[in-house]
């Protein structure tokens, strides 16, 4: 027994992270199973929001979400949609998302937040760091290794960007796991039977469908499909557009609603959407700058609006069925993942397509993180009876004559997967060969996603057509490509220079890691100050309110003076950059107001009791 525990303790802790579009979670495995780690306030979900506060400090999570309302121009959300993408990819999106983009964002987007420029991997790194800290506080030990989940349909650049985010956050990313596959792992824990399972994962910004074969602890993905730009965000934007149009005509504004107003409205719209999953009608309400907007929306209207969005998930589902060579009847179970699967219309559409009642027994917000924790335990050796065999979602090919793509590794190939291809030279004495690698299903290079250009260098100079360079393309278990080349004439490995079409270079990532080390101390202090100020705001507001109460008049003059003194002292240190000082003055104000609070409490209880007697 003792030995077992010592052995267990020796293993490096690996956490599982669900880096979501809307919310992120961190989970770990203990002896009883996977558990989500709550943040200090007890919440399991950490908003995937990052903000640069006016004093330059970067905050993530709940605080950043509050700043989304107060400082929308300094706050970024749904950044997952921008991972591994260039400016040209997101033009449409940016019309609806209020982000400012810096010059030079062709291959990596640079977001302008206050006076800071941040790339999507850096923004995600701040969310990851927040989760890492939560986990460290909860577990009472350093956390340096993680499994991070990604949408199954993420391409190479999007995966690489996620891995970069982990590195920048100081995490050794042992594995990227596809979200639906992770969900099946969590789900498979209590259902040990064999069979075919479809996982329908409809989240905040992405949609995935995966079909798996479960056999004695092996989770073999047969096929996957999806859309990395389809999610609950799209529903929010639909409703938001309608509400904005209403407001423009009702309020007779000369200018469009300002960013703060838009963010408040967005929140109201999301609340209405969410409550429509449980009630037949809901209300979108906004009071802002002396105006009031109120609109009743019923489920029938919502369903009419979102039907096209739900329809867009069904095409990938049918393709996935075709690719796995199965009919709907052969699917034993359908598992629902992601917050958007709470919508009744989504559930009925899935039920109609697969002709079986979908499972919703696990919390759709948490199941991916739980599965990531299981995969983490597989990697650390704690779980030995399970194994994931995942696939690559997109075909990999190279550009050949006339811009045609020659496919080397087909989609839905089990990963790791590889292909070997021979290349030769076209000109006498040629020293370099350039290979353009693409991902996608289309015939022509211009319709596929450019992944990278690989430059094979220092080829032995020989007459044209005599060189024989054998190139091996390898997709690893994370779904990320690497390329090696051998000059068959000399038997020597050929140098390969990679020019990724999208994303950060290794040097850029290294630089960001260094910067984050330098900033870490600074950021941490700034965060503590900010937290202290939030706490100060709360108590000041509460005290202010208490002064309106009869209890205030019941205090002695000396007691009232003591409270006013404590308030002034807190206000004096409020803007100091020392969180300890602020907390100390909060403590004094707390002590000074204790009697006031008690008196109010007694009065409240008295009123309540009186109420029951009548």
């Amino acid at each position, binding site marked *: 027994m003792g030995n077992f525990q010592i052995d267990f303790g020796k293993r490096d802790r690996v956490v599982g992270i669900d880096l979501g579009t809307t919310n992120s979670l961190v989970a770990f495995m203990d002896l009883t199973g996977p558990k989500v780690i709550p943040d200090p306030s007890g919440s399991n979900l950490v908003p995937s929001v990052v903000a640069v506060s006016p004093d330059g400090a970067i905050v993530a999570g709940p605080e950043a979400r509050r700043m989304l309302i107060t400082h929308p121009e300094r706050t970024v959300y749904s950044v997952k949609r921008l991972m591994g993408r260039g400016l040209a990819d997101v033009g449409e999106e940016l019309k609806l998302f209020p982000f400012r983009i810096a010059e030079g964002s062709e291959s990596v987007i640079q977001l302008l937040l206050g006076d800071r420029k941040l790339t999507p991997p850096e923004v995600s790194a701040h969310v990851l760091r927040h989760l890492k800290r939560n986990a460290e506080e909860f577990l009472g030990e350093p956390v340096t290794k993680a499994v991070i989940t990604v949408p199954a349909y993420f391409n190479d650049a999007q995966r690489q960007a996620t891995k970069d985010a982990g590195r920048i956050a100081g995490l050794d990313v042992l594995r990227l796991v596809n979200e639906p596959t992770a969900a099946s792992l969590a789900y498979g824990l209590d259902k040990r039977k064999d069979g075919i399972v479809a996982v329908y994962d409809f989240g905040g910004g992405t949609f995935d469908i995966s079909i798996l074969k479960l056999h004695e602890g*092996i989770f073999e993905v047969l096929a996957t499909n999806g859309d990395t730009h389809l999610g609950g965000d799209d529903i929010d934007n639909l409703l938001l557009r309608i509400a904005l149009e209403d407001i423009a005509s009702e309020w007779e504004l000369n200018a469009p609603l300002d960013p703060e107003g838009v963010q408040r409205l967005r929140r109201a719209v999301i609340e209405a959407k969410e409550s429509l999953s449980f009630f037949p009608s809901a209300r979108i309400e906004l009071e802002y700058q002396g105006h009031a907007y109120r609109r009743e929306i019923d489920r029938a209207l919502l369903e009419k609006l979102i039907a096209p969005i739900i329809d867009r998930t069904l095409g990938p589902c049918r393709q996935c069925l075709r690719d796995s060579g199965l009919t709907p009847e052969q699917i034993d179970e359908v598992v629902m993942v992601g917050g958007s699967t709470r919508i009744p219309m989504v559930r009925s559409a899935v039920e109609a397509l697969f002709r079986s009642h979908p499972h919703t027994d696990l919390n759709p917000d948490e199941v991916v993180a739980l599965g990531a924790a299981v995969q983490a335990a597989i990697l650390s050796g704690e779980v030995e009876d399970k194994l994931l065999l995942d696939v690559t979602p997109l075909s990999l090919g190279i550009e050949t004559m006339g811009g045609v793509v020659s496919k080397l590794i087909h989609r839905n190939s089990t990963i*790791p997967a590889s292909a070997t291809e021979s290349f030769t030279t076209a000109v006498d004495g040629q020293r370099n060969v350039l290979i353009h690698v693409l991902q996608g299903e289309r015939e022509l290079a211009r319709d596929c996603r450019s992944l990278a250009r690989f430059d094979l260098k220092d080829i032995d100079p020989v007459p044209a057509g005599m060189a024989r360079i054998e190139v091996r393309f390898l997709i690893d278990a994370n779904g990320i490509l690497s390329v090696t080349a051998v000059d068959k004439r000399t038997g020597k490995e050929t140098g390969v220079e990679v020019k990724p079409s999208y994303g950060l270079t290794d040097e850029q990532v290294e630089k960001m890691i260094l910067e984050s080390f330098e900033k870490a101390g600074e950021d941490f202090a700034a965060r503590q100050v900010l937290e202290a100020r939030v706490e100060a705001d709360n108590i000041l507001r509460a005290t202010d309110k208490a002064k309106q109460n009869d209890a205030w008049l019941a205090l002695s003059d000396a007691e009232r003076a003591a409270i006013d003194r404590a308030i002034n002292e807190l206000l004096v240190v409020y803007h100091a950059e020392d969180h300890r000082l602020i907390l100390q003055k909060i403590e004094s104000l707390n002590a000074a107001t204790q009697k006031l609070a008690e008196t109010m409490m007694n009065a409240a209880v008295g009123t309540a009791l009186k109420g029951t007697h009548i």
Partner: protein
Amino acid sequence: MSGYFELLGLPPALTLDAAELQRLFYERSRQWHPDRFARKPEEERQRALDLSSRLNDAYRTLRDPVQRAQYVLAQEGLDAGPQRSADVPPELLEEVFELNMALEELRGGDISVRPQLEAARASFLGMLAAAEARLPELFAAWDAARRRETLAEIRGVLDRRKYIQNLVNEVEKELSAAA
């Protein structure tokens, strides 16, 4: 570099038991998958990555009868090159000629040829099935006697199959474009 059959621990035969193939694949995946080596030194991790990628390539190739046959043909030095499947098999000359005429008319906007094209597609699909139905018998013949004539015959079937498949694809493409 060891061959696909060797990787899976199978004798190099064209006739395969699918259930046994899957069992062996799962068994080796449990041993070689990179997940099993996450805590091992870099060198061992690389080896696992290399080995499991080739195991996956082997399984993908061997579980499909056509890919399996192509692999064995290549191993035996009988490549079914793309130019071979571009030649029209003599017995199909007439049908292909008529098909091309009909396709031309459809492209020109004449939708009255649709039924004819649909019939042609059905007929080609029948030929495809017939060609594939010959494979098990040829596979068994090769496994028993290892005669090169058998391989040449298998290559003939694969070429014909590929040619017909291309025709079917072409017809389907034009039909859906005209729809």
